[in-house]
């Protein structure tokens, strides 16, 4: 019973704060709402007894990535009014229609389990010990995707370095 109430509480806060992410004009407030959303999702993971996932969610997203976001927003906004203008494009109305259509599709598919299929059966191994289970799965069944992901991350890292670290402009060759 307690768990149900906690679920409704965190779910409501998660939905509310994710709405605020798009409704706030001030980018710092948007970023903080996103942090609140991520935190609530981590709490939902805890309610599902996926403790490892919850901890990783907080460490990686709330603790590292969002701090970096805030850092960049704070640096870029120095001396400017910190307000985002609403976009004024040719396709504004079209994009609204498209997004609403996608949302409706998602809701119906969730409601009818059209895409979800039958509910996943809880695995006894995972309920006992999250970490061993995830570790074993990552290094057996999902080894290939795991390595691909790490390769993609490595490529992204090298790409960032190449883009950011421009060669200093060569001085004209000194006369002999």
């Amino acid at each position, binding site marked *: 019973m307690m768990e149900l109430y906690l679920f409704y509480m965190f779910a409501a806060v998660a939905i509310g704060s994710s709405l605020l992410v798009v409704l706030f004009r001030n980018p*710092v407030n948007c970023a903080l709402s996103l942090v609140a959303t991520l935190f609530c999702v981590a709490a939902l993971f805890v309610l599902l007894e996926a403790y490892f996932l919850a901890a990783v969610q907080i460490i990686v997203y709330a*603790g590292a990535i969002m701090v970096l976001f805030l*850092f960049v927003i*704070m640096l870029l906004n120095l001396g400017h009014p910190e307000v985002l203008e609403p976009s004024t494009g040719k396709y504004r109305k079209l994009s609204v229609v498209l997004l609403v259509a996608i949302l409706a599709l998602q809701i119906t598919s969730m409601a009818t389990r059209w895409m979800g299929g039958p509910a996943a059966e809880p695995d006894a191994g995972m309920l006992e010990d*999250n*970490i061993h289970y995830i570790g074993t799965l990552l290094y057996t069944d999902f080894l290939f995707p795991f390595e691909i992901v790490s390769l993609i991350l490595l490529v992204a890292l090298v790409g960032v370095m190449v883009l950011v670290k421009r060669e200093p402009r060569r001085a004209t060759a000194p006369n002999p």
Partner: protein
Amino acid sequence: MDYALVSLIKILAVIGGLLGAVAYLVLAERKISAYIQNRLGPNRVGPWGLLQPLADGLKFMFKEDVIPTHVNRVLYLAAPVAILIPALMGFAVVPFGDTITIMGRTIRLQVADLNIGILYILATASLGVYGVVLAGWASNSKYALLGGIRASAQMISYELSLGLSLIGVLMVSGTLELNEIVVSQATHSLFGFLPRWNVFAQPLAFLIFTVSAFAEANRLPFDLPESEQELVAGYHSEYSSMKFAMFFMAEYAHMITASAVIATLFFGGWHVPWLLDPLDTSLVASLLKVAAFSVKTGFFLFLFLWVRWTLPRFRYDQVMRLGWKVLLPLAIANVFITGVLMVLGR
């Protein structure tokens, strides 16, 4: 019901103990800094100045609470809360003793025995950055902002080596649960006489972890975010009264949690070497184990203070170079070497 009651008592005891320790750590810092600088330190309130924390607390509460008009009010008020709560949360998974038997009931001396223990501590530590960043930004003043930006960059950089240095320890003990890490240190021995504390098994990890913990707690020689000669007081320049005190308390609570974690991970936590059988759970043994934990934590707290009043502050580029070019590669090398040794020694 029983479980809830015991948990509640444990929570209250830990929070109360932590806040009391924070108050007396402030006094200890003033006393020790005084002795290091050949002064006497506070000695007017009570015998040897022991009631000084009370006077400090009263002073903080009765000071005028100024909220500058140019701040972002909501975030300005939220920042002290956002820094103090994670600082107090971290201690929940630290085992400050083994089990204790009172009135026929065996109680584990740890608020929450999570099976992700050490990850929980990393998570709360990483949430602590928000208070600093928010305070810096919401104060709407250049000194506070510079302090906040410095703090976020520094804490992100040192979180990496903090986490990576732990991996070696986790590989040796094979668990994330803090109490089991302590048990694995207490029940093995090296060369027959040395307790197998992780500091002997993972000396490099200990060094990296300690340095990173100093940087995470924003203590000298890494107190760039609040370096008073350049930034007034850094991210909490615009705060007064109890709100300033909350930043202060958070810093000291961070120090206590960091010291407790270092003692737990690397120095056997509640383990009393040679004298006590680690499986002995009589009342005397339980209390001795709590005392051992307190002594070890106290030593690292003293180390925090000792370093602060001995070493000068780094330059900012030196902080970044140490984090990214020295500690991070060393931590990765430590993981690699530990893995190779474990495979060879199998």
